[in-house]
């Protein structure tokens, strides 16, 4: 028995206990250390952005670096809006992202319902095509889209962004929603039709209320994607008053030195609403992200 006591498997031997406990403590410590390290890694750039936006200019360009500003200064936040169209840029982003989300969700819901619950030929081929389109590179279409939008006199308009954004987020919406609709038991929608609903009523009265969570999730991810998009907005819109926020931040500069305080303040204004949105809908976003690239 004495030899058994030293072995890890002997849970019941009294002398085995401290050893297991010590292992647990070491494991806990390691977990905490790693956890803190990752927290630092993921949050530090955001912390840096935040303190830069709140430091007075005199404390930004100094070495040794001031890690904890002694007093907070909100003047950068005011300066962001003076002499620029930044308020207008925010409005543009809101309009473009909202319109994109709405259009993608409406078209995506229609198609997903047709794919999941109605007879269509070659459904598997359609879904494979949808997957391939989810990962299609925007850079491959930017030239052809530019010529098309220029010839249609749509550059420097909201359409120049809403159209490509919708086309690029639609495959994602179709994929996520089809997977979700498919999991709604056929009995429910069929029963509704036996009870005298048309297929359209079965969509609006049975499927849609049940899939509200999936629609909200897809909508959030599409909204964030459109809010963050840069390539098309940068290429198709040159008028400062029509630019979205990421493009405006790309162009933020100064005459003599780069105004990091103001850029950080603008970055805060852009990222805080999205971060708030993400934290409020944390669960749904994580589900949507995994469903978007793994199987629904």
């Amino acid at each position, binding site marked *: 028995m004495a030899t058994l006591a030293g072995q890890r498997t002997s849970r019941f031997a009294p002398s085995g206990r401290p050893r297991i406990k010590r292992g647990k403590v070491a494991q806990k410590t390691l977990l905490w250390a790693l956890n803190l390290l990752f927290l630092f890694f*993921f949050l530090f750039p955001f912390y840096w952005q935040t303190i830069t936006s709140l430091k007075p200019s005199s404390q930004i360009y100094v070495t040794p670096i001031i890690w904890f500003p002694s007093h907070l200064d909100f003047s950068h936040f005011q300066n962001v809006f003076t002499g620029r169209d930044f308020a207008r840029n925010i409005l543009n982003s809101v309009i473009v992202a909202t319109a994109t989300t709405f259009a993608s969700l409406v078209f995506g819901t229609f198609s997903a319902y047709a794919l999941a619950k109605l007879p269509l030929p070659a459904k598997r081929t359609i879904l*494979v095509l949808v997957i391939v389109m989810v990962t299609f590179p925007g850079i491959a279409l930017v030239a052809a889209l530019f010529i098309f939008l220029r010839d249609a006199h749509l550059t420097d308009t909201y359409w120049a962004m809403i159209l490509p954004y919708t086309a690029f987020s639609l495959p994602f919406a179709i994929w996520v929603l089809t997977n979700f609709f498919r999991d709604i038991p056929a009995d429910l929608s069929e029963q509704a039709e036996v009870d005298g609903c048309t297929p359209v009523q079965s969509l609006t009265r049975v499927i849609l209320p049940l899939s509200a969570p999936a629609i909200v999730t897809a909508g959030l991810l599409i909204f964030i994607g459109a809010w963050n998009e840069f390539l098309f907005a940068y290429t198709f819109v040159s008028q400062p008053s029509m630019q979205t926020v990421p493009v405006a931040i790309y162009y933020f500069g100064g005459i003599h030195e780069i105004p990091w305080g103001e850029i950080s303040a603008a970055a805060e204004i852009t990222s805080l609403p999205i971060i708030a949105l993400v934290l409020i809908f944390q669960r749904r976003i994580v589900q949507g992200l995994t469903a978007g690239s793994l199987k629904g």
Partner: protein
Amino acid sequence: MATKGGSQAPPLAVEAGPARVRTTRLGGWERFRRYGISRGQLAWLLFLPSVIVLIGVLGYPAGRTVWLSLHTYRLDMPFLGQPFKGLYNYTFEFQQPDFWNSLGVSAYFTAGSVVSELLLGLVVALVVNESFRGRGLMRAAMLVPWAIPAVVSARMFGWMYSPGVGAFNGLLNGLHIVNGPIDLLSSDTWAMPAVILADVWRNTPFIALLLLAGLQVIPSELYEAARVDGANAWQRFTRVTLPLLRGTVVIALLFRTITAFQTFDLPYTLTAGGPGTDTELLSLHAYRTLFSYVNFGRGSALAVILAVICFAMASVYARQLRVEAP
């Protein structure tokens, strides 16, 4: 005759069925008014808007890009017209050192960022999968880098990397790893690792979340069984966790490889391909050819090459997902 007719009666009766129905069949509008449209017609009708958008805004420009790549089309020299050049733009690019440089840079960036993100993401997922207090905080913190727009994070990393007064300099000097200011983004050696680090910061959470989803479906009975059999933590990891996580890892790897290969926003904002062409990814090289040199023929050829590579990886990815007909 009668017997003959009688012997033919059954097929006639069968034919008579539809014929009788046909006589009572309602006209299109009347039928629609009474019964609405059929399920099949409704399916097509609901599918139509997406088809129009996808063909109009994805399909047509994709075809137009291929067309452009086969022609000379320079916005700065409209007098050249748009003559058909066959594969000339492609053969021309294949002889350019700039093209091969950008392909190599893209490979470097993709391999560097995806491998780091996968390894780091795996550790993060394993840590978060263990139950401990503060796990919710960790999960929330992971979403912050993902939520911040790529352009914004690129500018923030640009500011952190700035020599002397940037946070990165401050940290390295504080830890006495270097002494004095360093300028990573102007260094031939360090510009790309700096870009990769920014990308790793931004995309590791995504991979970690995917792997976490994979970890959570591994039944805990398997770990207990392995523990009863005397497997230590490392053995449990290599014999239980890794084999069961393999599918998720492959999918995460493919998905990130495709998206990393087409990355544009972050390197364009952070380094714009510099110093020189040290961080000029294929996507940046295509964009520069398109909109700085306004050479739409050659730029489109580069874009097609990029799209074909992505397309090849995407077809493997679609196969890995094992799509089933709904």
